[in-house]
């Protein structure tokens, strides 16, 4: 009788622990995604300043600047999902990268201290987003393991928790670039 009660209590404690752990892991995934969002916002906030600084020197890159501004407006608009925001960010990233290459043709801009500072902040934000994405993927992997492995899968079924998809690695992450290469590209 007593042994049976002890076993029942033990099962209950383990069950509650696993249930809470699963909810905790799901919340961690949400937090990790919010962290990406914060980093993206930080990066989008750099754009107006960047465009303003660059516009004064670059006469022939008007289209690129307009495109970057439009993309920012789209990303900051209402009703844009997080996944869409990430996709827009990648487009902004490519456009800015192209812009940075064009800077070579504008020595005055290249020497402008405000631009140099913006360039460093941009690179920093790029790595911070990459770090936030890697963190998100690690959190999703931990969550997926908990959802798919026995006995967590039982609770996952009860809570309607399903495996999530990790974010596809960006070009920079895949190429495993050194910092210098990133800067020179």
């Amino acid at each position, binding site marked *: 009788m007593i042994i049976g009660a002890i076993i029942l209590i033990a099962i209950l404690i383990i069950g509650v622990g696993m249930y809470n752990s699963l909810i905790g892991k799901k919340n961690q995934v949400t937090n990790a995604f919010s962290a990406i969002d914060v980093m993206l916002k930080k990066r989008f906030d750099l754009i107006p300043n960047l465009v303003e600084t660059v516009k004064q020197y670059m006469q022939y890159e008007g289209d690129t600047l307009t495109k970057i501004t439009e993309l920012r407006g789209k990303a900051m608009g209402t009703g844009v999902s997080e996944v869409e925001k990430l996709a827009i960010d990648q487009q902004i990233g490519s456009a800015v990268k192209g812009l940075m290459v064009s800077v070579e043709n504008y020595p005055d801009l290249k020497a402008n201290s405000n631009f140099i*500072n913006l*360039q460093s902040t941009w690179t*920093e934000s790029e*790595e911070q987003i990459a*770090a936030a994405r890697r963190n998100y*993927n*690690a959190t999703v992997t931990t969550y997926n393991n908990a959802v798919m492995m026995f006995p967590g899968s039982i609770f996952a079924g009860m809570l309607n928790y399903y495996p999530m998809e990790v974010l596809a690695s960006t070009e920079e992450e895949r190429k*495993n670039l050194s910092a210098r290469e990133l800067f020179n590209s």
Partner: protein
Amino acid sequence: MAEFETQISPQVQNTLSELENERKAIVDEKYKGWGAIIFSGVVIFLMGALGVIIAGLLLGLCGIGYGIYVLYAISEKEKSYKDRYKRDVIGATLVAIDANLTFDHYKGILESEFRYSQLFSTTPDRYSTEDLIIGKLDKTGFYFAEVHAEYKTETQTKNGRQVSWHDILKGIIFVADFNKHFNGITIVRPKSMSASISAWFSKNVFSFGNKSVVQLENDTFNKDFVVYSSDQIEARYILTPALMERITDLNKRSAYHVSLSFIASRMYIAFPLDHNYFEPPMFKTLLNPNLLSNDINILNFMCDIVRELDLNTRIWTKQ
């Protein structure tokens, strides 16, 4: 930056010739002192065997006293020889190699900084440090010093309490200004059985303190190290895929597993070593052309870290 060469300057060569004479005189005195002690021991034993115990003891103790006096008298000269070697040979050679390098054999990494670095979870009970080298390579300032940190264990035996000392670190701690800003604490420790168990608990059950285990993507890196951090995203911002590979390479080139920590914009690396560097030889000649090769090699190794870990790349807001 070119590799430092082991060439000894003519000025240092002259100092070495003078120091060689000092060394020989010290060694002669040491032989005299130890010779007197050993000889007196033999005299006590032999005279005791012959039954002349009192006279043997008196004679022997006089001899031992003389030996101890000679060794004591030479200890000051030995200290002065060591000091001059470090100042006029090591110090002068480093400055000749690179004017940015400074060497102070009396200074080191303070115990408070050793604790602050959190490189090791054990707190030292005995700590010594010496041979501080400070330098700057391009934009990156760095310093390193020899450190011997130990902890003690006490066991109760039938003869009373026995204290044993164990090494936490015997080697070099290298500190460099890191090229990115960060606010949290990230620690990279070698993977041992206890670290793995603690990491498993931290990941699956509960975290110890305010730092949790960071699961990174590089399998080779994960096999060698366990990473703890107060900020999961910041840890990944510091430990980029490229830096993880570089740390793995650095670890392979080191004699023993290295430990790293990233605190207050600085990077700390602990290198356990078997050799005590920057010390003058006592029973070997100073006139060997390769005299400084070990010391210059370790200096090259430390300065290489800045290049290997790409610390001079300052493309982020930190300049």
